[in-house]
């Protein structure tokens, strides 16, 4: 939907940031703070604030020895994967454990890989029964809570998935593009997704998005278990579990911005 009202003008700090990147791309490629400020006619404080922000998103690096600024490595890899999956696991470890302990369910973290959900982290259900580590497993995007979260915040991936045949895995799997689209809209509105016997009979999941600084969704964290433990009698996800999953997702997103 297009919002009605005043169209905002250009945002000055973004223009200045763009000018800084152009500046750093020139000549020797290394500039001190005073040189950046002088080159762009900015007060040092303003230039410093913008450089620090660019450094935070890794578009700019600062030399540890000389304190001079240069373009960051992230600029070269803008099109490739934004957050390393192993780093995501490492930064999520504490919160995934806490979610498993709190919910009493198994916890997984999934990222998109090659048209499916790749499980990059798995914490056992805390009941000390024999379980198998599921890291590296692939899950279908359209039939799992994890996949729905990844689809809901990735328009390209969502369009591509809806063009493909949506394989029926149980009698409750979503198989039409229209109903998938409708569900993804709900996911965006609610901020979480679930599946109830859409992937495996008797199994249900709840998942929420993990966001990198700036809001980009880089993965989904969720819990899975038997449908009677995850859902109420009307096959709706239990609110207490939803809020635990959402809190864990928020805690990880916060940790990623530290």
């Amino acid at each position, binding site marked *: 939907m297009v919002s009605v009202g005043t169209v905002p003008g250009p945002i000055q700090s973004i223009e200045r940031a763009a000018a800084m990147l152009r500046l750093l791309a020139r000549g020797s490629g290394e500039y001190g703070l005073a040189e950046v400020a002088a080159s762009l006619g900015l007060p040092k404080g303003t230039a410093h604030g913008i450089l620090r922000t660019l450094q935070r998103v890794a578009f700019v690096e600062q030399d540890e020895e000389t304190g001079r600024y240069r373009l960051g490595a992230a600029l070269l890899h803008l099109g490739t994967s934004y957050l*390393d999956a*192993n*780093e995501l696991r490492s930064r999520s*470890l504490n919160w995934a454990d806490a979610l498993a302990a709190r919910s009493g369910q198994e916890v997984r973290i999934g990222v998109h890989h090659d048209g499916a959900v790749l499980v990059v982290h798995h914490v056992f259900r805390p009941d000390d029964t024999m379980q198998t580590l599921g890291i590296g497993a692939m899950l279908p995007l359209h039939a799992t809570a994890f996949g729905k979260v990844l689809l809901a915040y990735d328009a390209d991936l969502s369009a591509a998935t809806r063009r493909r045949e949506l394989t029926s895995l149980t009698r409750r799997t979503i198989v039409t593009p229209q109903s998938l689209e409708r569900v993804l809209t709900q996911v965006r509105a609610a901020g979480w997704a679930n599946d109830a016997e859409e992937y495996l009979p008797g199994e249900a999941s709840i998942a929420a998005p993990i966001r990198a600084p700036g809001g980009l969704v880089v993965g989904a964290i969720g819990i899975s278990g038997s449908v009677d433990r995850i859902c109420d009698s009307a096959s709706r996800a239990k609110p207490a579990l939803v809020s635990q999953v959402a809190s864990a997702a928020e805690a990880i997103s916060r940790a990623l911005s530290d």
Partner: protein
Amino acid sequence: MAQRYVMAIDQGTTSTRCILFDQSARLVSVAQREHRQYHPRPGWVEQDAVEIWRNVDRIMPHALRDAGVSADQVVALGITNQRETAVVWDRHTGVPVGRAIVWEDIRTEDLVGELGARPGSDAVRDRCGLPLATYFSAPKLRWLLDNTPGLRDRAERGDVLFGTMDTWLIWNLTGGVSGGLHVTDVTNASRTMLMNITTQQWDDELLSFFDIPARLLPEIRPSTEIHGRTSRVVPGITIAAALGDQHAALFGQTCFAKGETKCTYGTGSFLLMNTGEQLVKSEHGLLTTIGYQIGGEPATYALEGSIAVTGSLVQWFRDKLGLIQSAPEIETLARTVTDNGGCYIVPAFSGLFAPHWHSEARGIIVGLTSYISKGHLARAVLEATAWQTREVVDAMTAELGVASTALKVDGGMTADHLLMQTIADVLDVPVLRPMVAETVSLGAAYAAGLAVGYWPDLEGLRRNWHLAARWTPQWNAADREDEYANWKRAVELTFGWAKPRRSR
């Protein structure tokens, strides 16, 4: 009534963390800050104790704020710390006399060589349970006394204080120059080489052997005991436990029974086995140490296999070689290849610790051919941690005459899936990770919570332990034995490299 929590401060080698736990041992909030490592000369590793104290000053309020918890909801604080790292400061100003000398630092190698040649050196190990090595606090403290102008006089006059990081933090938290407590716990004291491992008191003969004035030393206390209350940063919190990080991890893994073992993967890695009230002297290169001491009870002993360089090898790969951007990317890089390509890295950066104790060893990369890519090097980095674990596990097996059937692990590196799988492969036993990877902090919290009755007893703590992940061995026996033989040959190549400096 408002929910109540226990706070842990984990003052580690590279960062300091403050974590709040609830009664079910679930992590509620965590705040963390890294501190700078100084490498002024080859083999020297230093830290700024004031920077570490400032970090504590920031993370304690931060952890409370994140959880929306007030100080009066915190029933106890447990402090755990990197061990052996030595700091000396002025008791009147609170200012350290220089940077802290970190446990990995090997500047005292020549001094240790001289001490080892002196009469009486044979008795040192019997008295303190440790071999003469650069690793422990006493040689570092002696070095500071010998090399800081005027320090010995100030020490004799009682103007300066010595401590490991637990002592430094408790002194500061309880008031610093205005009445700060100068105490340490028995586990930290057991790493100095100055404590008698049998009596658990400072030992006059050890003090005279290392020529260290007794006035410098803190009072030795049990690991769990009400030490006092914080008067700074967040005032009014009861400090109810202090113990070295590896001892805290043993506690956090609930290894309360004789024979129970854990391995913690951090900057270095440390395998500890609870040996109960029995003091076991190792024939196989392991250390005798105090596991923990609950106030009013006899100390529980432990055997330890210390590995100096594991996580720090990954950091070296990141910071000094620049082949990865972040530590977890080592796994991504290692997965670009399927094996080590014949390449082995033995990270004897601080000599080799257990079970070899070769302080003159230095690191090598061996097996290089033009085939080797950075992916193979990344594999070799991870495998170095796995094989070093195998060596200390084998030493533990030789000591006991029975092999273990699984390895309980914890620490930040347990997030590395490929590493954990490789450890299972080289050990040929399952590797088990508990629900809280931050076991060091959890152990400090447990010890503190136990002291104030937040948790009733050890059995109650045991029930909080749940399995979070299990890696099962996949290699075949022939490959494992071939690789182990290669690793052992690589280790032998590191021996005898460093030569004593020519006297000037």
